[in-house]
C-alpha cells in the first residue's frame, strides 16, 4: 500500500544545527521569524555533539491519524502527504502518539501543526533554505524509515 513519494531527508553528517530550516518554515507557515514555531525541529545534544532532526515521515499508517479525535488529519491517497487542517481543537492526542516528535504544538493558535511538505511549492522551504545542503527533497527507493538517517558521508 505504500505510496512512493518524494520526502524530505536529512544527511546528518552535513547538519550543523543552525535552525535556518525551522526559521524558514515558521516564516512560510506562520509568518513569524521564530525557529521554535517551525514544523521541522532541530534538537542538539551538546554532550555528544550531534543533531537530531524532527522530520515528519508521512508514515504509511500514521499514528497521528489514528489518534485524531476531530478527524482533521488526513493522508492524501495519491501524494501520500499527511496534513492537518484548522478544525484542530488542541487536544494534543497526536502529540502524544507521534514517536518522532514531529507533531508540534502551536500555543498561539492552540492547534497542533505538522509538516505538509509545502504542497504549493516545488520544493519545501526548509530544503531551499538549508545552507549546507543537509536537507534534501527526493525520491528514494525505500521511502520510509530506513534511509532517514543514512546518507553519503562527508569527506
Amino acid at each position, binding site marked *: 500500500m505504500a505510496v512512493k513519494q518524494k520526502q524530505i531527508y536529512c544527511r546528518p553528517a552535513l547538519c550543523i544545527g543552525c535552525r535556518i530550516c525551522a526559521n524558514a518554515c515558521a516564516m512560510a507557515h506562520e509568518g513569524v521569524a521564530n525557529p521554535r514555531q517551525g514544523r521541522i525541529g532541530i534538537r542538539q545534544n551538546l554532550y555528544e555533539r550531534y543533531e*537530531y532532526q524532527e522530520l515528519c515521515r508521512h508514515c504509511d499508517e500514521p499514528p497521528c491519524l489514528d489518534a485524531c479525535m476531530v*478527524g482533521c488529519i488526513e493522508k492524501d491517497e495519491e501524494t501520500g502527504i499527511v496534513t492537518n487542517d484548522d478544525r484542530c*481543537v488542541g487536544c494534543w492526542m497526536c502529540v*502524544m502518539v507521534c514517536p518522532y516528535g514531529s507533531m508540534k504544538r502551536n500555543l498561539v493558535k492552540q492547534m497542533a501543526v505538522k509538516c505538509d511538505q509545502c504542497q504549493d511549492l516545488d520544493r519545501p522551504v526548509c530544503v531551499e533554505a538549508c545552507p549546507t545542503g543537509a536537507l534534501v527533497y527526493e525520491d528514494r527507493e525505500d521511502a520510509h524509515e530506513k534511509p532517514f538517517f543514512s546518507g553519503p558521508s562527508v569527506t
Partner: protein
Amino acid sequence: MEYVIVGNSAAAVGSIESIRRIDQNSNLTVVSNEPEHVYSRPLIAHYLAGDVEEDRMPYRPEDFYNKHRVKLMLERTVTEVDSLAEQVCLEDGSKLKYDRLLLTTGSRVNVPPIAGCDDYEGVGIFQTYEDVRQILERLKKGNRAVVIGAGLIGLRAAYGLQEAGAEVTLIELLPRIASRVLDQKGSEMVKKSLEEGGINVITSCAVQEITGNKTAGVTGVTLKNGEKIACNIVIIATGVAPNTTLAENTLIEINMGIVVNPYFQTSFSNIFAAGDVAETHDIPRQSSMVNANWPNAYEQGRYAGLCMAGDMKRYPGSVGMNSVSFFNMPVISMGLFDPESEGLKGTETKERISEKNNLYQKLVFKDNRLKGAILIGDISYAGAINDLIREQNLVGIIKDSFLEEKYQLYDYLRKKREADLEGTAIEWPESHSSGRRYEKSFNEKSWTERELDKRAWR
C-alpha cells in the same frame, strides 16, 4: 461477503476504511442507534463549550459512506445476535445476515442508585450529541449546574459547562478527582487549576438525593452531609462500563469487556469486537484489559477491519492513554502511572515537579522497562515516552537523567532508528544505570574521526 458493523464511531470508521482498502466489492452495512452522521464523542465537550461549531462536528466528510459504499442504517437498534444462524435481529423484527460481524458498541454509563435520578427533567448523562443538545436547551432556563462524578467525562462536562457560561459544582465520592487517570499529585494540580478556572470542586462527598418538581424539573441536589446545592442541570458521570448487552445471552465470552484474541475474534471466529467494548492485551501490564479511549478504538477498528477482510495482522496490544487540556494546562497520562494504588511491587518512580510553573512529570519503571507516565504542563516529549511504553524496551541508561536531560530521548530515538535499520531490538545495558552520566557515544568511532579530522568544537 456480507459485513455487518454494529455501532458507528471510531472503531467502526477505522474498520470501514481498512475493509475497503482490501475488499472493494462486498456489501458493508452499518447499524447505529443514533441519528447522526459519524461524529466525535470526545468533541461534545468542546461543542458545549462553544469551541467548535455544529458544522465541524462530523468526524469524516459528508460523502464518507457513499465513497466507501456503506449501507447505513441509522436509528436502528440491534436486539440480538444469533451466532448459529449467522444473523442479527433488529428491533422491528427484521433480520440481517452476516458473514463477518463487528461489534463496536462502545461504553454505557453506569447510573448509580441515587434517589430521584430518573424522575426530573434536566438530569442527564454526558455521552452523545443528543445529551449535549438537551443540556444547551436547558442552559437557556438557568445556569447553575452540578456534575456528579469527577472522572474524565465529568471533568470534560464541567469544563464545557463552565465555558458555556454556567456555574458548575463538581461532586466526587472519592477523596481525589480523576482517580482513574491521574495520581495524587496530578489530581491535586488539576483540581487547583479547575478551581482557578471557577469550578467549585467538592470531594469525599456522596449525593443523597436529587430534588425537583414536575413543572420546573430538577431544582437541587442534597449531599450526604446535609448541604443543599441549588441547580437546574445535573449531569451524572459516575463512570462507564463496556456495553456488552448484545453478547450477554450468547456464547460469546465476556470478562470485563468482550474477550478477543490478537486478531479481534471473539469466541466465534466470524464475530469480531473492537473499540471500548473489547478487552485486549494491555502492553505495560502484560494482561488483558479494556482500554477505552479514542486513539485505541480507531486503531483497534483498523486492525479488526484488516482481519475481517482476511489480512490477519496481529494486534500488538494497547496502552491506556489520555490527553486532556484544562484552562491551557495540558495533561497526559499513559499506561501504568500509579503503581501504589494498584498494589504493584518492585516499581521505581522518577519525578520532576515544579508547583510554580504548573509542571509535573512522573515516569514509572519496572524491571528496567518504562511502564507508565504522567506529564502535566510540559508534554513536548510525550510521543517518545509513549513509544518507549509501547515497545517495552530496556531503559537502563536513560532512567536516571530522563526527565532532566531531554537529549537522552533523542539518543533513544536515534538508536531506535539504527536498530530498525539492522532489524534488532535495543538492549540498554543495566550497568549504565548507576547514576553517573552516560558518557559513551553510540557511534563513538565516527564521532572521534569527525572531531579529529574535520570539525572544530562549536
